[in-house]
């Protein structure tokens, strides 16, 4: 028999079913959690990023020039000991974007840019009956629909071909105002300009911030509400590779001299949170692996102690030290592989269970829709190597002890 060690190992696994089940369970619980926690968190984060990125431009040219932000290094010395609030006020000023067409001409040839659209956005009050809500109204052009993927989120009506008296609102806002398609609502801008607008579309992005606090109108209508004549408050840009947003933003900034932000800057908090989550996940995984390794090691130490006599018998028949090690380590590796697949299945079931739980409870903090949870492939692969590595590491010491037993001592044990 070429690999008698495996023959013995498998027989031991079968004969010592209790220990085998304990090891497999330890590994499968570890693997399930190693996969489940990051899969849930990263699905949440990925979903949040996707919704955020698809519902806002990748790059935005803004009319607010935050001089404090852009020149803070320059002013750092002057700001020393100053009241920051005051400094902020002094250094922040606004510039109107008067000729959006000219700016678009300046940047339209940048290779990464796919679409450019000006917008007029500001705070308004939406009033319907006794209900009054503060909502961000965004005046858009048809080009805007190439930048924000809002059409896929339309649950009723339309967002294309908005006339000057049309408005599109989110599902949550519609519910709160108790309005539906065709109903009229009153919008009042920051300078007191009021308009009566007809609801022609209702969307549901799944993002609370959008579905409750965002509305879309025709660009001209937005300009009227905000009382900015033909100016725009910003220009949205969509690019081919969203992860090149920083580079493209920098190029647009250079060409226009205006204040330009990327989606990464606009969503810095979410991205920072994601990175913090990743660190926490890594730490939790480390703890899980350590705990699984400890239980596997203790089970193997017990197993080796219980098998001392048999190790002696095998050695008296000529089994080499390395063969004794292979007998014990191959048990650990085999049980870990079984444990991995059980753990993978467990993770899948836990993800499904968690998803059902969320669906039954309705909403989450950031989102009004439950994200599509899926097993994170990278962590599933990592968990496989974790389980193998852990089992090898955990069984090395007991296997080495077994191999080093002197035959006469083992027989007399």
């Amino acid at each position: 028999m070429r690999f008698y060690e495996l023959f013995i190992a498998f027989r031991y696994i079968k004969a010592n079913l209790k220990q085998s089940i304990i090891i497999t369970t330890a590994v499968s619980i570890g693997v399930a959690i190693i996969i489940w926690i990051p899969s849930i968190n990263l699905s949440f984060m990925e979903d949040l990023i996707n919704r955020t990125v698809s519902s806002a431009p990748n790059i935005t040219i803004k009319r607010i020039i935050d001089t404090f932000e852009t020149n803070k290094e320059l002013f750092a010395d002057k700001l020393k000991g100053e009241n920051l609030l005051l400094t902020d006020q002094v250094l922040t000023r606004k510039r109107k974007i008067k000729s959006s067409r000219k700016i678009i001409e300046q940047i339209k040839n940048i290779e990464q840019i796919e679409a450019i659209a000006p917008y007029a956005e500001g705070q308004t009050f939406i009033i319907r009956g006794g209900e009054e809500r503060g909502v961000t109204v965004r005046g858009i052009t048809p080009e805007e629909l190439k930048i924000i993927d809002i059409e896929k989120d339309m649950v009723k009506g339309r967002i294309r071909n908005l006339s000057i008296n049309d408005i599109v609102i989110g599902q949550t806002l519609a519910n709160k105002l108790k309005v539906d398609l065709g109903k009229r609502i009153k919008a009042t801008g920051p300078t007191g300009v009021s308009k009566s607008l007809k609801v022609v579309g209702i969307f549901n992005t799944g993002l609370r911030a959008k579905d409750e606090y965002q509305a879309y109108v025709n660009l001209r209508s937005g300009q009227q509400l905000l009382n900015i004549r033909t100016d725009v408050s910003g220009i949205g840009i969509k690019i081919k590779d969203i992860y090149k947003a920083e580079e493209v933003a920098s190029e647009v900034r250079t060409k226009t001299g205006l204040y330009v932000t990327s989606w990464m800057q606009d969503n810095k908090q979410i991205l920072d949170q994601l990175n913090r989550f990743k660190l926490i996940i890594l730490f939790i995984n480390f703890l899980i692996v350590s705990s699984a390794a400890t239980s596997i090691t203790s089970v193997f130490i017990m197993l080796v102690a219980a098998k001392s006599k048999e190790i002696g018998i095998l050695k008296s028949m000529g089994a080499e030290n390395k063969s004794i090690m292979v007998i014990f380590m191959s048990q650990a590796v085999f049980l870990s592989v079984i444990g991995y697949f059980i753990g993978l299945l467990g993770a899948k079931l836990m993800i499904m269970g968690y998803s059902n739980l969320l669906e039954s409870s309705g909403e989450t903090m950031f989102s009004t829709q439950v994200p599509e949870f899926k097993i994170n492939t990278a962590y599933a692969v990592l968990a496989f190597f974790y389980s193998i590595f852990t089992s090898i590491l955990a069984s090395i010491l007991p296997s080495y002890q077994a191999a080093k037993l002197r035959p006469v001592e083992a027989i007399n044990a």
Partner: protein
Amino acid sequence: MPEDEILLSLENINKVYPGAQPVHALIDINLTIKKGEFIAVVGPSGSGKSTLMNVLGLLDTVTSGELYYLGKETSKWDEKQKAVFRNREIGFIFQAHLLLPEFTALENVLMPAFIARRVNHSLEKKAKEILTIVGLGDKFYVKPKNLSGGQNQRIAIARALMNQPSVVFADEPTGALDQKTGNDIYNLFRKINAEENMTFIIVTHERGLAQKADRIIEIVDGQIVK
């Protein structure tokens, strides 16, 4: 191989078990055993018989002295060399049969061949033949826990003979057997000894069995007295 070829020789072998009160288990043992001899080792309990067997079987190390197998000094052999030698040249029959409980009678007998990484149909046939000779022709697939002490001892004997070793060390091989089976086993040993020129070194308390041996080695307090 000539019949009077020396199989193993011991020169001034000492074995001391360390501790608060060291135990001198073997004292200046000098011994030569020829290939094909049938030897009985006798002596009172605790006299050093089992220690001598462990040392001769390369299961234990010596404190001082030299042990030669087929003219080769073994003290410098590493664990791997000793393991290979045990597998090829030595068969053990322990006092408490020491079988592997998870394996059937046939698998226990085949185990030395498994370890030598050679198992084929003819070896399985041979293992079955040996089991049949020791009276277990109908117990091939039975595990030790379902057999009596005597039956287990017979499996241990079959296992020791499986790899056709040069020497078989047997510690009280017939102690757990009835007289008839004991005689059968002795006759089997003798038959193999004569046919295969296999050396047998049997530790026993049974005077009757010892007297049938070619040579009796008597140990008292770690020394050979006869």
